[in-house]
């Protein structure tokens, strides 16, 4: 049972930790040359918000995340459906995918840089490459897990192949597909930041690096915190959307005898 909307003890702990950090830095007990106090980070954050710098950097990152994630989801769902439905395709191509999948996307960064230069394309290619896998694997697994009984039902009701796919198989696999999409959002964000730090001089990732090089630890910390907040916001948004999509799938969690 929830009494308050706010987790008071949890908030208190966070505030105490922040106060402790502030005291350690101000009293000189923590001997880091460039460790800013929370108050300094807060002031830097306010100035970044007011000047509009934060907005323009965040806009780039959010845009590329949305493009990259949408593309990854589309490709992953397409591949997952195709391989999930066709044993023939699985037999011919799954081995190739299993070789590619464990290779860390980050290792391809120099290669992508070589091919696409310092550009949004490089950033997107890396994001999509990294985040396509969870969607693909989950979709394929979800489709393969659809019970044969549902295929019997589709056949005896004389549904067309298209109807079977759209009305039976995809909805039956929807929980797995949505899980894949949520997992890939996290990867998309990570790859966007990494790519912006190294391969595409725009966005929040690039901002962190340029503040580092400008010896502006307060502003650098502020950007790091914004990235964290963006991650939380994207996750929460996606959770809301997925609950909405799966609202009729509550039975998957219900205790049905």
């Amino acid at each position: 049972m929830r009494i308050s909307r706010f987790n008071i003890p949890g908030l208190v702990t966070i505030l105490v930790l922040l106060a402790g950090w502030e005291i350690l830095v101000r009293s000189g007990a923590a001997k880091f040359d460039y460790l800013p106090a929370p108050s300094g980070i807060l002031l830097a954050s306010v100035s970044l918000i007011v000047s509009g710098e934060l907005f323009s950097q965040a806009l780039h990152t959010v845009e590329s995340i949305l493009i990259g994630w949408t593309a990854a989801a589309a490709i992953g769902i397409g591949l997952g459906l195709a391989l999930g439905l066709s044993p023939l395709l699985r037999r011919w191509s799954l081995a190739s995918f299993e070789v590619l999948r464990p290779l860390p996307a980050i290792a391809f960064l120099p290669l992508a840089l070589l091919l696409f230069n310092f550009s949004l394309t490089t950033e997107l290619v890396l994001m999509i490459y990294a985040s396509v896998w969870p969607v693909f694997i989950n979709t394929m697994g979800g489709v393969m897990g659809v019970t044969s009984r549902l295929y019997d039902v589709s056949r005896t009701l004389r549904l067309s192949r298209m109807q079977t796919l759209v009305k039976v198989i995809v909805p039956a696999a929807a929980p797995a597909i949505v899980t894949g999409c949520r997992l890939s959002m996290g990867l998309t964000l990570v790859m966007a930041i990494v790519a912006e730090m190294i391969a595409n001089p725009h966005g929040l990732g690039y901002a962190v690096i340029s503040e580092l090089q400008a010896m502006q630890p307060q502003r650098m910390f502020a950007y790091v915190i914004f990235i964290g907040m963006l991650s939380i916001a994207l996750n929460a948004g996606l959770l809301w959307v997925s609950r909405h999509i799966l609202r009729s799938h509550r039975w998957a969690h219900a205790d049905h005898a």
Partner: protein
Amino acid sequence: MELSRGFRRILDSVALDVFRGEFLTIVGGSGTGKTSLLRLLGGLTPASAGDIRFRGRPVNGPPEGVVVVFQDYSRALLQWRTVAANVALGLEGRLGTAALKERVARALEMVGLQHCAGDQPWQLSGGMQQRVQIARALALQPDVLMMDEPFGALDAMTKATMQDELLRVHERTGTSFVFITHDIEEAVYLGDRVVVLGGSPGRIHTTVSIGLPRPRDQIATRQSPEFLQHRLDIHAAVRESAGGDAHF
């Protein structure tokens, strides 16, 4: 017709006619190929040899007018769809919205579920879920309804109610039924004819015509001497067909 899987024979020279409007029940112990036979008749599995015809046309794939109802209702229903949407599944795209709604409502009314149209299947009891599956088949207004041990997972009281409901549907619609069960009493109570399937590979051991009057009654019919005699005969046939060792 015959059916083999690899080197294993499942059904061996089975010849069977289903007549218009009749209620045909098929009994047999486990492993005698009851489900396989129903899948062949329903066009879900192709025969290895021989031929299956529906109204003179060879069956390759489920024919229009024949619908199969499965035992495992919770897996056969689309749990993410409402009861009404489940019933509508086979009709979507074939009827206009108004006609569809009307057909779904009629099918639900026939199984007594008109008040559950907006529920999700998982909110219903087992018996009610099985009714949804039956309504989904009835909505297609089939000529033949094939049922694979539809009440096998239900408790005795629910089962008796469902049997009477099914008989009422049979009377109202004139649909032919092919009903598989391992319950001899159920086979006699429901059927116009009872086919005894036995052996491995399965074959038809006997076919018994049941002359019991309709409408049938759970108490009066089951106590009548004819019912008891049929039960006895079929029990003996089942035991004989299994080589004196019936396990069901």
